[in-house]
């Protein structure tokens, strides 16, 4: 049954831009009636249906609204107007290492981090070996995370997120983690997830990589969808912005 994994319907997102944000009680009361903020419209009536099993790349120049759209999909932020619905367990790799606690070991942090993704103890136990193996951290897994290099930190975080077994995976700009070897490994893992019919939405500026991985490309420009389709979107985008 072909069903939509993500439905974005007429979504508009405004950010308020405060120059002097009232944050104390006094300021709130004093500035009650004043016009306090400029409104910055980042997404304008965007509609987008993503089917189950699709691998979609969001492309566009800096500040066009890609990350904002992903954040809306994960429900970190909410649309000003419109509605977003998702079907299935969703994991977002927007920023890695949420909930990492520097003083605890890598192994303990796997538990903290996976718990934030909504996994239970048993589910984490089951995946623990896979996660550690994927990260290739070896004996460092039992050292405190504060002693890790930034690449090692990313490896661990990415390994947790990718092993959550979500049906929908949202990824923002994090394929640049780790060394060449690890990057390659991440890509083949994504390839594997794609073939097991997971839905993947990926934001990236490394066009060559997403071109290989994805089957659908959505070009976002100034808060609107400018083009949506197959590889030709990338070519067109390169012509205009490359």
């Amino acid at each position, binding site marked *: 049954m072909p069903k939509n994994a993500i439905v974005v319907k007429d979504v508009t997102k405004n950010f308020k831009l405060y120059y002097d944000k009232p944050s104390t*009680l006094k300021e709130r009361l004093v500035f009650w009636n004043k016009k306090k903020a400029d409104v910055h419209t980042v997404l304008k009536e965007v509609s987008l249906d993503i089917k189950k099993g699709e691998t979609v790349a969001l492309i566009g120049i800096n500040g066009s609204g890609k990350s904002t759209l992903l954040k809306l999909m994960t429900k970190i932020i909410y649309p000003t107007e419109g509605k977003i619905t998702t079907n299935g367990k969703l994991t*977002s790799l927007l920023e890695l290492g*949420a909930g990492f606690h520097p003083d605890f070991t890598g192994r303990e942090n796997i538990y903290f981090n996976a*718990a*934030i993704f909504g996994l239970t*103890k048993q589910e984490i136990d089951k995946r623990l070996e896979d996660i550690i193996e994927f990260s290739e951290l070896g004996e460092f897994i039992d050292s405190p995370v504060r002693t890790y290099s930034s690449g090692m930190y990313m490896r661990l975080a990415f390994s947790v997120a990718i092993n959550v077994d979500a049906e929908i995976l949202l990824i923002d700009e994090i394929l640049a983690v780790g060394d060449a070897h690890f990057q390659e490994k991440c890509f083949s893992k994504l390839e594997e997830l794609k073939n097991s019919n997971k839905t993947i939405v990926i934001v990236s500026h490394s066009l060559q990589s997403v071109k290989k991985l994805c089957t659908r490309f959505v070009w976002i420009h100034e808060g609107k969808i400018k083009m949506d389709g197959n590889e030709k979107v990338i070519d067109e985008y390169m012509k205009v912005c490359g």
Partner: protein
Amino acid sequence: MLKELYNYRELLKTNVKKEIRGKYKGSFLGILWSFISPLLMTLVYAIVFPFILKSTEPHYVTFIIIGVLPWTWFTNMMANGTTIILSNAGVIKKVYFPREILPISVVTSGMINFLISCLIIGIFLICSGIGFSPYILLLPVVVIIQFLFSLGIVFITSAIDIYIRDLEYIIAFLVNILFYATPILYSPEMFAGTPIATLIKLNPMGTIINSYRDIFFYKQMPDIISLVVLIGGCLGFCIIGYFLFKKLSKGFAEEV
């Protein structure tokens, strides 16, 4: 809503563990430390107040500690709970999870802390020769009431704290005042028949602490009608707090 909380039960557990362990980590005396401050407070009150109040209460130290320990739980909730969203800004901006996990885990770890500190009450009851009565079985009921009451407040204050940053100071000030309006150092009988007695009755923390005293100190049945009213009231309050929290939580990631 309950289903989602259930799905995230592991997060709740790790949060509670982290909070309790974080407190005690690294020192053998750790567990003691969190009880030393209420014990010292009790000591000071026990020395000073008999002079002021000309108290005739026998076992005054035990009398006070039964008030001070639940009060410590309450003030910790007001202090740590109000800032809980703000102090987790990093995670809130990075990833989705049901935000209500945070207030619930603070209040839960506070409760576990309090239950541990009930051992101190037990020691005082034994040493003073007061002993125990079967009414102690009502302890969970009173604890649940205090849990719901604290959680209701923390839902509201932690969410509003994001929008009004100095709320924590306002709360700290109010809690200080409430300390004197709560029968911790005195017993409400002292004011029997005056308007102050009514005022104390209206303060949920007053009834809660009176109930702890009834079951531990006076070894008698707490006022059942007040307890039933409180359970209903606190549950309703907690639900209202939850919905307010839910509504405001949509803006957390943008505002923190």
